[in-house]
């Protein structure tokens, strides 16, 4: 059985080490916070916060306290607030150890496309381009194929790029791949997924 959303998030959480400052994207990456266990992880929200807490209880929402997805959240005892210029200063400056992000397409050279489909409604890149250019490690979490069954793990991205050569590791429903010299390397297979199945769902070169 391929991994489901929660299993992918749990696998991504294994990438995080004690003491890391981490930025989680919207979607499956957000679920990663549920699986960090006892590890001391500080979550950054790029609208200006380190030490992001869980959603508030009903009736305790604060309009002045939201995450980068504009959802109401809470603070922790360790929380620090800052402005957007400082927030992206720490992102661009490489102070954030890792970002876990979703993707529309990834390529064997580490290219990432996750902000724009030409001809469709374009909402903008938000902070994604800054994150992939700046953070220590970029981990992509996504389904291996699209709804039509076509591979999202490509030789070259077809969609407009978010960043070039920025991805370190790709975690999909079928397994874990690293971007290495010459292509992608299989690090791990999801439970019950064979190497043949993963290769068949992958357009990129596997070395």
């Amino acid at each position, binding site marked *: 059985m391929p991994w489901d959303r929660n299993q992918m998030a749990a696998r991504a959480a294994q990438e995080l080490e004690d003491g890391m400052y981490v930025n989680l994207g919207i979607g499956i990456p957000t679920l990663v916070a549920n699986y960090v266990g006892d590890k001391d992880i500080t979550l950054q*929200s*790029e*609208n*200006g*916060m380190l030490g992001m807490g*869980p*959603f*508030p*209880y*009903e009736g*305790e*929402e*604060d*309009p*002045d*306290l*939201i*995450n980068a*997805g*504009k*959802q*109401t*959240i809470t*603070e922790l005892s360790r929380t620090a*607030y*800052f*402005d*957007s*210029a400082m*927030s*992206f*200063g720490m*992102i*661009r400056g490489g102070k954030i150890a890792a970002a876990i992000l979703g993707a529309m397409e990834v390529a064997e050279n580490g290219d990432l496309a996750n902000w*724009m489909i030409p001809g469709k*409604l*374009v*909402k*903008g*890149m*938000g*902070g*994604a*381009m*800054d994150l992939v*250019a*700046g953070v220590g490690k970029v981990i992509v979490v996504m389904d291996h194929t699209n709804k039509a069954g076509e591979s999202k793990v490509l030789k070259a991205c077809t969609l*407009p*790029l*978010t*960043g*070039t*050569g920025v991805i370190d590791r790709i975690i999909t429903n079928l397994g874990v791949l690293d971007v290495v010299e010459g292509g992608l390397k299989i690090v791990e297979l999801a439970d019950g997924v064979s190497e043949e199945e993963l290769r068949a769902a992958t357009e990129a070169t596997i070395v």
Partner: protein
Amino acid sequence: MKKVYDSAAQALDGVLFDGMMIAAGGFGLCGIPELLLQAIRDAGTKDLTFASNNAGVDDFGIGILLQTKQVKKMISSYVGENKEFMRQYLGGELELEFNPQGTLAERMRAGGAGIPGFYTKTGVGTQIAEGKEVKVFDGEEYILERGIVADLAIVKAWKADTTGNAIFRKTARNFNPPAAMCGKICVMEVEEIVEPGALDPDHIHLPGIYVHRIVQGTHEKRIEQHTVRQREEA
């Protein structure tokens, strides 16, 4: 010099003109200068260019100026929450310049700090880099981005003293300090104006040198996405 004004309309008197560029603070609907935006709508100033991370929603924030067709161009990182925005954009009535969020924040900060341009890795090899100077530092490519100097900055703080020393609350700080810095004139709306000395000088987020006019008002502070968790059973 008196910085405190009685209303948002008075605080903007004499600083608005057609075709001007306005830098606005806020992220989503959080920490936006909602009263000053309403006053700009009422003033009817046209052909505005806004440097603002987002464009509000249809009936709140910058969205109210889109309904009255007062906006010519947006410089933003994310605009997804606004149907009227999309209608005008797809219809060719509205210009849109996408900036990566951190690049937009740094463009404001730099503009306010007297830095006309800076090099960044963000956007290298993407559409954002098209037409921009590329320079190699230590073997890595960077693109040149320009500082923004706006005709006017409109921002929202939590509290300010009468000299403009301001503090923000939680994530409502966001783009407000860099936007304030890059305005030739900065008008700030606050929830509470206090006397000098009431705020600890060590706790000031934005010094009053960046703030020219202040107005106190009542804020709706709309929440864009209510997300809550269940209480554990006792």
